[in-house]
């Protein structure tokens, strides 16, 4: 199991996968937006998306868990 974490504080701009979806390493899971910068957060490993813990528009802090991949 891997936790996908926010690398910066900001809001969730786009969620690019759905629970149950099979993802590859480095595939974008969400795109965060902060201070005019959009940062894609990718999967660290291949797996299946178990849970997405945020919704589009949510505010996250650096280190918050965004999704869980199995």
């Amino acid at each position, binding site marked *: 199991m891997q936790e996908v974490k926010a690398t910066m504080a900001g809001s969730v701009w786009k969620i690019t996968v759905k629970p149950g979806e099979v993802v590859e390493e480095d595939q974008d899971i969400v795109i965060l937006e*902060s201070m005019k910068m959009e940062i894609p957060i990718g999967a660290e490993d291949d797996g299946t998306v178990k849970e997405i813990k945020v919704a589009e528009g949510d505010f996250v802090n650096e280190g918050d868990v965004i999704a869980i991949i199995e």
Partner: protein
Amino acid sequence: MIKKILIANRGEIASRIIRSCKKLGIQTVAIYSEADQKAPYVSMADESYLIGPPRVNESYLKTEKIITAAKEAKADAIHPGYGFLSESDQFAEKCRSEGFIFIGPTAEVMRKMGSKIEARKAMQEAGVPVVPGTEGAVATIEEAIEGAESIGYPIMLKASAGGGGIGMQVVQSDEELTKAFESNSKRALTFFGDGSMFMEKKVENARHIEIQLLADNHGNAIHLFERECSIQRRNQKVIEEAPSSFISDKTRNAMGEAAVNAARALGYTNAGTIEFLVDKDENFYFLEMNTRIQVEHPVTEEITGLDIVEAQIQIANGEQLGITQDEMHINGHAIEVRIYAEDPVTFFPSPGHITIFEAPEGEFIRNETAVTSDYDVTPFYDPMIGKLIVKGINREAAISLLKKALKDYKIEGIKTNIPMLLSILENEQFQNGNTTTAFVQEYYLPQVQTK
């Protein structure tokens, strides 16, 4: 005569514009979002209007709300600052059709310069050299490979609708181009809703050098020399200086002349900047034109003694420039650093609560700041929280003063790029003037990433 100006902006540039207005005895009107209620610029203005929630598309980009505030305040002119609506020809047109003076050029010239493809064409017609590239957008890989054949590698691939460095990549071969085209086009489609790409010859070891222009409504146009802004991260400027220590007087004059000729050919008015890429042999190529005041305008003010914001207002008032090219001289060397609320290594934004904010003070030190102690830096806007500008009799003196001033800068509570700035100033390559747009990748990042 302009008696009251609404500033359609926020942060340090709003404060900067208010200062020049005060000097000229002009009343000022600030606009602010819910996130900026406590911003210093709001209390500096004579009047202020809340225009909406924090998000820019509900506040600083809302033309109707800005116009309503301007009417209510009975302002007679609108200064757009930089960013936000400053380069929107529609905004300029709307301001004017509602009876306000828009402090900037005509909507027509803004529209032309806002399109990468049209701007290129206009500059070519004005005799300004452009970087070899595709004439229009490239939609397929086949077209891209065909274009690459005539341009020659290395090539800079850019998203037509792009900005902020997204969808930009340098490629060296057909194979790399194919791969990069596919992934960047896909990403551009996700981000901007448009996957079309644009290709340009990559100018190697390029410097970013730009010419500041002033042009009045009576046909007078002058340039205020150059600014070198090669030190960038994420394709955004970090350190800017004037003059450039790299170009010769001959190149300086040729670039200035090309820029003034372009301004005349375009019928350009007010302040503007033409950005060029300059290669190691001092060949220069048009990059883009900014039809507004720029973040780094203070370095030009420091070496020329002119107040560019004041000049903008006077030009908008219909006054003559009152200075000629022959009267312009470079005096000393100025450097500006942008203070960003961000991680100094990853460059990721670092919004949060500033507990202590103390800018350095002293002779030849100038601060343009957007924040104070006990202040929240929100995630809604650009990470720039201030600019520090110093002046010296020469570049060496300016660097030395800048180092001292940066060491005295005190910001607590959030991460800032000050460690990065200090590290660059200590770098021998920087001190020797070896400043290309690849500086951060070539010299700064390897140094901090091995630590």
